[in-house]
């Protein structure tokens, strides 16, 4: 690895190859094919690197630049500095969509974690037919959100929907699920929870089955009840899984779009107008490309911050509880 440290900055194949040859000249000639290997390395990664230079690196710069311009796709972009970001903070809709998205996340995350963990706990015995169940649970995860959203628009339909039909058995009046402000956003959150449930439950189950059973046996000998066992063994040892489920769920839930687009179009009265839906509207309905790019960067910043906080907070917990 001596070659790597001296030429860490060299990305040009020619420069790097020369430097690598240099390094090998100083060492005993144990790897006479270093040149060839370096060249092969660059050739192998070339298609991927060229692609990502264009569609990751270049595009990120374009996006950052666009967020500093006013551009409607017709005239040429006009540089306005941080004006888009300033405007966002006096945009009433921007705050409405943030509020809706945060409420969505706050409904989605606890429900997802508790439901998928409870089912995983219930399923974590040696049961026959687990494979069948897992196939069933995975299906919502594999299905497209578009199909799922349309099916649930039908299930939630106020007059003929299956859910109101089911509630009718118990004498409950039909609920106008998607057309009333108090139920529309929870309904959408429910769809997301439903779609991810089997998936997250499987992750928890894998985590549970990785906990050595002798710990429970020892705890039972010491007279620890089920709750004590859960609190002192299961929960702390499951932290890496919980952490993974939490982080990925948070990242995904901030970007809720398909259900809002297909089930409610942001309505009623903007109650399901989510952040990404607003970004889509700004960028591709009103063609405020700069404004939409600024929104994307703000979302990016928030997601990094939220993930960072989770890393800091939860990593401490693992150490404390395992120590």
């Amino acid at each position, binding site marked *: 690895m001596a070659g790597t440290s001296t030429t860490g900055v060299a990305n040009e194949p020619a420069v790097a190859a020369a430097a690598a040859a240099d390094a090998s000249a100083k060492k005993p000639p144990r790897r006479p094919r270093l040149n*060839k290997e370096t060249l092969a390395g660059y050739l192998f990664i070339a298609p991927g690197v060229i692609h990502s230079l264009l569609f990751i690196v270049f595009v990120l710069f374009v996006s950052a630049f666009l967020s500093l311009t006013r551009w409607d*796709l017709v005239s040429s972009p006009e540089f306005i500095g941080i004006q888009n970001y300033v405007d966002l903070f006096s945009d009433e809709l921007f705050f409405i969509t943030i509020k809706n998205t945060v409420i969505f996340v706050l409904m989605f995350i606890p429900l997802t974690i508790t439901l998928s963990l409870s089912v995983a706990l219930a399923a974590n015995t040696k049961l026959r037919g687990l494979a069948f169940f897992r196939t069933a649970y995975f299906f919502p995860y594999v299905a*497209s959100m578009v199909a799922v959203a349309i*099916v649930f628009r039908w299930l939630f339909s106020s007059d003929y929907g299956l859910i109101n039909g089911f509630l009718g058995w118990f004498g409950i009046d039909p609920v106008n699920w998607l057309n009333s402000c108090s139920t529309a956003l929870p309904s959408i959150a429910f769809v997301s929870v439903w779609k991810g449930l089997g998936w997250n439950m499987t992750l928890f189950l894998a985590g549970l089955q990785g906990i050595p059973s002798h710990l429970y046996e020892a705890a039972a000998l010491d007279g620890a009840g089920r709750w004590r066992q859960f609190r002192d063994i299961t929960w702390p040892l499951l932290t890496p899984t919980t952490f993974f489920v939490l982080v990925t769920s948070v990242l995904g839930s901030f970007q809720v779009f398909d259900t809002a687009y297909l089930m409610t179009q942001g309505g009623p009265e903007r109650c399901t107008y989510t952040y990404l839906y607003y970004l889509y509207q700004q960028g*591709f309905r009103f063609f405020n490309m700069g404004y939409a790019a600024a929104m994307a960067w703000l979302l990016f910043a928030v997601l990094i911050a939220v993930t960072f906080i989770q890393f800091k907070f939860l990593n401490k917990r693992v150490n404390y509880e395992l120590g």
Partner: protein
Amino acid sequence: MSSADVSTRVPPAQGSQVAKRARRLSGYVALSFLAAVSLIPFAWMISTSFKQRFEVFIYPPRWIPESLQWDNYLSLWRDFPFWNNWIFNSFKITIFVVLAQLLVCSMSAYAFARLRFPGRDLIFYLYLGSMMVPDVVNLIPTFVLMRSLGLLDSHASLIIPALASAIGIFMLRQFFLSIPRELEDAARVDGAGYWRIYWDVILPLSKPALATLGVFLFIWTWTDFITPLIFLSSPEKYTLTVGQAFINGQRSSDWERLMAANVMSLIPLLIVYLAAQRHIVQGVTLTGLKG
């Protein structure tokens, strides 16, 4: 907790038997409940897709249609470019993306896992870091880029940006690292070059990993909605998801046909998933892929 109560009241040996049985029963109840919750919406979707119009709005709901209305499926073809365009387009784009990405990602992954060259680790970490960037940040500039290349409203605008991905490179690299090096040494002694080793040794040994990545790419590409929604504008170029959204907007209470379109869009996913489900569960738990 109830099982713990039981065990205090009866002799230990018998008590643990009862507790075990109670746990098993509660396990099955929970599993069956979740299975029902997971599958009922799909059952209702299939049921609705075969109903006649009047049957759709019958109350109380009827599960088994009077007769199977295959015409709900056929009329999708009469009224929309459903079969010949949308389904075909989705297949075309998905297959292109899957094959191209398997090739490009496995080439990069091989180099990152096996070859030594300056800057290797730096570039790899940059890839890892790039996975933090949410897709939506790249959506707008990619749209702009495709527009300036004159590729908007073409399938190339969906295929080209998806020819490689950091997650694919990462996943395959992890797998390649687990392949014993001795297997390559034999080939090297025989004078095989890097390409031969990659193509004739590494790739054949990596079929499970390639299958897992392929299935995930298929699912992600097939179900992608926001990108084709933004990049495509002529209805005959739509992918299936955008086509479904189109019907959803145009005929928002044609439930039997909306459900027929849903069923059609899910069949390929179901086939791919069932064919590779063992790989999916394994691959997911091993690589920590997110979806």
